[in-house]
């Protein structure tokens, strides 16, 4: 009940405000409390605060915050996804570089091996040829030596007959008549000894 009378009090100075301000301002301050401490207005303020803040809370909780949260989550997901994608691409690029380098190294090693092999083969062949030639030369040398030896032996054998012939001729010329062949041979043999 006192509430309605309070309004009567409140509205009265409000209506009177138009003309005599200096007059109404002071009494108004006297019978009206300092507005923030005026307990008459508390129920209305509490009720409307509860209603408005309650609605605001529900609206934010149900509509605004899920939306903001999803916007930020979607963005974060997208960023993570993009970063992952970038990391994957970088990994692929790194792998490609590594593979290329490995292939290059392999090719180099291969080339080296082929070169080495060719080198070795050439060396081996040269050695082979040299050995073959040496062996051939050795054989020829042996053969030549053998033929020399046989020729020498033959010559040596012939030297005896020549000496016998010469001796017989000498004897024939000196002595006259034919000398005994066997004797001459013995003599030559003893002389050539």
């Amino acid at each position, binding site marked *: *009940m006192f*509430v*309605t009378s*309070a*309004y009567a009090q*409140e*509205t009265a100075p*409000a209506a009177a*405000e*138009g003309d005599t*301000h*200096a007059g109404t*301002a002071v009494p108004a*301050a006297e019978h*009206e409390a*300092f*507005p*923030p*401490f*005026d307990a*008459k*207005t*508390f*129920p*209305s*303020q*509490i*009720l*409307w*605060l*509860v209603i*408005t*803040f309650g*609605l*605001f*809370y529900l*609206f*934010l*909780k149900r*509509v*605004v*915050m899920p*939306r*903001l*949260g*999803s*916007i*930020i989550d*979607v*963005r974060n997901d*997208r960023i993570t996804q993009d970063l992952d994608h970038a990391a994957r691409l970088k990994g692929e690029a790194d792998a490609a570089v590594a593979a290329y380098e490995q292939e290059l190294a392999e090719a180099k090693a291969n080339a080296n091996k082929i070169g080495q092999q060719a080198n070795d083969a050439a060396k081996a062949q040269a050695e082979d040829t040299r050995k073959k030639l040496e062996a051939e030369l050795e054989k020829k040398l042996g053969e030549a030596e053998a033929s020399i030896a046989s020729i020498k032996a033959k010559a040596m054998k012939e030297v005896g007959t020549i000496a016998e012939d010469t001796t017989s001729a000498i004897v024939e010329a000196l002595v006259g008549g034919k000398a005994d062949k066997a004797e001459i041979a013995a003599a030559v043999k003893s002389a050539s000894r």
Partner: protein
Amino acid sequence: MAAADKVDPIHQFQIHPIIPLHIGGYDVSFTNSSLFMVVTIVLASAFLYMSTASRALIPGRLQSVSEMAYEFVGNMLRDAAGKQGMQFFPLVFSLFMFVLVANLIGLFPYFFTVTSHIIVTFTLAILVIGTVIVYGFAKHGFGFLKLFVPHGVPGYLLPLVVAIEIISFVSRPVSLSVRLFANMLAGHITLKVFSGFVVSLSAFGALGMAGSVLPLAMAVALSALELLVAFLQAYVFAVLTCMYLNDALHPSH
């Protein structure tokens, strides 16, 4: 509105009914305060709703503001109360946005400042402390009372410390509400007084008008300060809410 009304710095805090309403003997009229509460939530909701309507991957300016507010409060709560505290995110975010927008709207001339009334800030503070108490007892039972018994205090000091802890806990809703209320009230009174000086001095002719430049400059500087205070008090309110909620989550500190 006449000049004399403007000079009265208290006039701006007066509450008058727009739609008179009485329920159960209580006066619950829809007043100018109620109107600005509605304006506050409609403006804040509309901004948050419309700025995020496109759900752009690359946010525009307005969406950035909404996201910044969201992440600002979210980080504040996570830092103060940990991951568990995130269940109170809607509450803290609503409180922050409500107080911030109410403070900012109050800066417009002829607009009513909802948060310049102690009962409003006190109701919000009671909401916070009520949440802390209800959640604290629901989660920890009587373990919640460990809040008043800090670790590592020698036995003979314990009664004194517990008494101090209880007093500090009880004074929290008071300090929380008075801080916001007093800042808004004092700021608006100061602004009004200096603006009033401009009007009063101008009434004294040319010399007075020249002299009124000083209070005008002061009023401009104060407006900038009040803008800062409007944001800062919303921030402080939200930070303290986070810290009190942390107590509800982890009473043994």
